[in-house]
């Protein structure tokens, strides 16, 4: 039955609301987990003051930090502060953790954006070419890439790239960061190459499978019978449908990039949030780690929201079915 525009709107709104509700649930769950686990780790006052501090100081600090209050009071306070972005002061740097994290975000965003922006189009291109010409070089490349992406560990790939591209050939800097922007590009090439191997393999393989499935659909025959060029038949008609699963996967790609940046930033001395995490772990800086976990969750949730919205946009059927 034809759906009236008003109904369409309502369905879409319900869909968005449902997703938002889920997002809030996720944030709350992660916050609670962070709270519970964080309180298990030992006495925060002791952590701040160090092992040698006199017991009286620790007791005083505990009182000051409200650690003697009932647990649900502490939990409530924690939530209220978290919503305001206040996770306390870094044990290590002595500044609000949120500042530390925000300061690191541009470098990580730069890296992730480059990686995502190059991985997805590249993978879609490879996947489509592989699907259109079965048995071709691209087809085999897709299989190899997807296997390599699952089997090669990124820290090793990063180090091998440094050894051969930077040390042996001297083409690119071994590590470091000079800033976001064009000048920073040479420094970003190897980190990005390391980051995208897995995603490119996975997305290319999925695109290939989706594309092959779409090429066999009846509407492709229709498009050909309409006298459209193969470019339109495949690149417009089949691809738009094949992109639907690919878009869902790009959410996963962003999330696996968040994994990747931890290692890649650590190896390439890239001053982003991933490096901050490793530094915080080495210095046992709990508030910073908590902040990172929370901000990552916020990012994950946003990514999923964006993916869902794009999905709803590109796949007309979902606006109705999922409502």
């Amino acid at each position, binding site marked *: 039955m034809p759906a009236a525009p008003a109904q369409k709107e309502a369905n879409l709104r319900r869909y968005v609301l449902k997703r938002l509700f889920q997002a809030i649930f996720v944030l709350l769950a992660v916050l609670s987990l962070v709270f519970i686990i964080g309180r298990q780790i030992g006495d925060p006052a002791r952590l701040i003051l160090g092992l040698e501090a006199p017991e009286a100081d620790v007791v005083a600090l505990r009182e000051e930090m409200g650690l003697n209050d009932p647990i649900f009071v502490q939990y409530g306070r924690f939530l209220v502060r978290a919503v305001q972005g206040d996770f306390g002061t870094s044990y290590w740097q002595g500044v609000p953790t949120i500042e530390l994290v925000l300061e690191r975000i541009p470098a990580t965003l730069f890296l992730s954006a480059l990686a995502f922006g190059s991985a997805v189009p590249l993978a879609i291109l490879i996947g489509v070419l592989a699907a259109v010409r079965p048995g071709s070089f691209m087809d085999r490349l897709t299989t190899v890439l997807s296997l390599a992406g699952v089997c090669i*560990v990124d820290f090793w790939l990063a180090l091998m790239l440094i050894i051969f591209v930077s040390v042996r050939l001297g083409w690119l800097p071994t590590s470091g960061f000079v800033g976001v922007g064009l000048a920073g590009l040479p420094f970003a090439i190897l980190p990005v190459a390391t980051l995208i191997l897995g995603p490119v393999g996975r997305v290319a393989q999925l695109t290939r499978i989706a594309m092959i499935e779409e090429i066999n659909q009846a509407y492709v025959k229709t498009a050909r019978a309409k006298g459209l060029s193969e470019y339109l038949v495949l690149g417009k008609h089949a691809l738009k449908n094949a992109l639907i699963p690919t878009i869902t996967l790009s959410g996963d790609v962003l999330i696996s990039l968040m994994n990747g940046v931890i290692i890649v930033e650590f190896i390439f001395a890239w001053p982003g949030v991933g490096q901050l995490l490793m530094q915080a772990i080495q210095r046992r800086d709990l508030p910073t780690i908590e902040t990172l976990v929370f901000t990552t969750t916020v990012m994950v949730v946003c990514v999923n929201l964006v993916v869902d919205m794009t999905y709803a946009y*590109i796949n007309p059927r979902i606006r109705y079915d999922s409502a």
Partner: protein
Amino acid sequence: MTAPNGESLHGKQNPDPAAPNDELLPQPVGGTAAPLAKVTLGRIMRGFRRDNITLLALIFLFLVVMSALFAEFLAPYSPTQQNLRLRLMPPFTPAVEGGFPHLLGTDALGRDIFSRLIHGARISISLGVASVLLSGTLGVTLGLLGGYYRGRLDDFLSRVVDVQIGFPVLLFALFLLFVTGPGYWNVVVVLALARWPVYARVVRSLTLSYRETPFVEGARAIGCDDRRIILKHLLPNMLSPILVLATLEVSGTILGESGLSFLGLGVTADTPTWGKDVANGREYLRIGWWVIAFPGLTIFLTALSINLAAMWGRTITDPLGRWQWLGVSPVLAKAPPAIAAPSRENVATLTAAPADASTQPRAGNPPVLEVKDLRVEFDTPAGVLYAVNGISYTVEAGQRLVILGESGSGKTVNVETIMGVVPSPPARLSGAIYYRGDNLLTYSPGQRRPLLGSKIAMIFQDPLTALNPAFTVGEQIAEMFRVHQGLSHGQAKKQAIEMMDRMRIPSAARRANDYPHQFSGGMRQRVMIAMALALGPEVLIADEPTTALDVTIQAQIMKLLREVQTETGMALILITHDFGVAVEMADQVLLMYAGKIVERGSIQDIFRQTAHPYTKALLTSIPRADHKGGRLTAIAGAPPRLTHIPFGCPFHPRCPYAIPRCESEVPPLRPVSANHSSACHLFEEVLLDR
């Protein structure tokens, strides 16, 4: 750390892109493939010889597992034995004391890398297996419970699974390990906690799908308790996908562990691990690449072998895949077919059949469309499929030609060949298709394209699948104007709406922005017709345009087609299996059987002077009065498989008139009267027999 994603990697088998139309595919004779062959050692050996990559992977895995078990006996050196005189020695350095050479070199403390790798296997393999056992047990249990009992528990679990799968694994693991501190068992538990949702998700969806199956419902009906159903009926059926998944997860866990070790949060004891060894080499990457290269390579090869083994496991747990892998073709294992495929000579006789007068090329004004001795063959795994076997006919302007036949008679392939939408490299085409005197089969796709849609258009059987779900119908119609006439978006859209209006689609202007799934079946077919007629083609081919629709809608669509045909004076080729439709629509009727024309004539001739036993059988099978849409299935016997078309007259196994001659000699299409012909040796007799 790369999140392994086995599901998306090997999850779906790609469908054979070359597979021709479904209706052509040979039906399996014995239902499911149940070969008579046995699994023998020889077959397994030959299977491995063909698939030597899997063999290599399995051998490598065996060596790694042996290393893990017997490292002390296999490693030439103790993994912790330092030798400061042999620091950072490259691969193949001979040992000073004349012992075993340092095959893979030594690290910064002079320790033998090869020996360290052998010992490192112990941590990787045992930790991988332990963690997978834990996560698998947890995930499978929760997935089964959630999928079986549904309700609150299931909702909650699904939510948790979704959240966790969407969360970066490494961050999760690092956070937990930061809290618990490093250590072997901590790593095992943390990785298990990170990965159990993968099993839960797969098992839950499997449980949901098995829950409704007869065997589970049957078990419930005879009073089996839940525990028994889950353990005895559900779990065994899921075992092979779970095992394949678990194998892939071992690889993922090994990679995960190596990452944690590399970051210094893995196993603490000073037993070597592959990840730690890579980390150890970091400081020496300028002078000792081998310190890093070999541990990483070992991780890579191990993960690769496990993945290949899992792929193999997936193949051999699938019955059909197993037989293919063993090199036993299920088709060949069956008894030889009762009817032989036509030999080359036989095909030659088919070709030799004289064409009747109406297919001779004409001088002067050529017909709109002329098909001459068209043959279409496909190579399939079951042999050559003879879809169209030398058919000839002409279509004049304004003519309504109905092609009648059962499914598998080659009627659809015939018209798809005209449109050039039959996958052409797998299909072998011969003969000619003349459009206004020019042979389309000699055209390149680029030359043919301007004609398609504009001069010759086609509408398909199921409008839901034939329309692209991702574009609005307005856009799909407008595309015709933009591509063929170069109109702008706006103009094309206006034209499209006008076409929809002409096809009597209510409130066309608004509905043009809707997507195909928002239309009813009948409206969708109107959209298809609007699209096909957009550019005023000279020939419209309609392939069973109403089969997918309700009976009342069918009549409306036929009425519309007849009206537009009269209005525009185009030629109409209508493919159907419905004699009722033929009676309603046809000037000329072509009956096809096994890829050949068996009878041709005006609809009156066919009805009053039926000259072929097949036609006769069809006509008597039409239910009288009550229902005019008689389907062509009520004849004894089945239509021949196109891979195994009988010798002589293809209809002889089902023909009540058959004489011995019919089994050996192909009946040519002979004129019955001026514009009526039949391919039957005995048509005179058939004519008299009423």
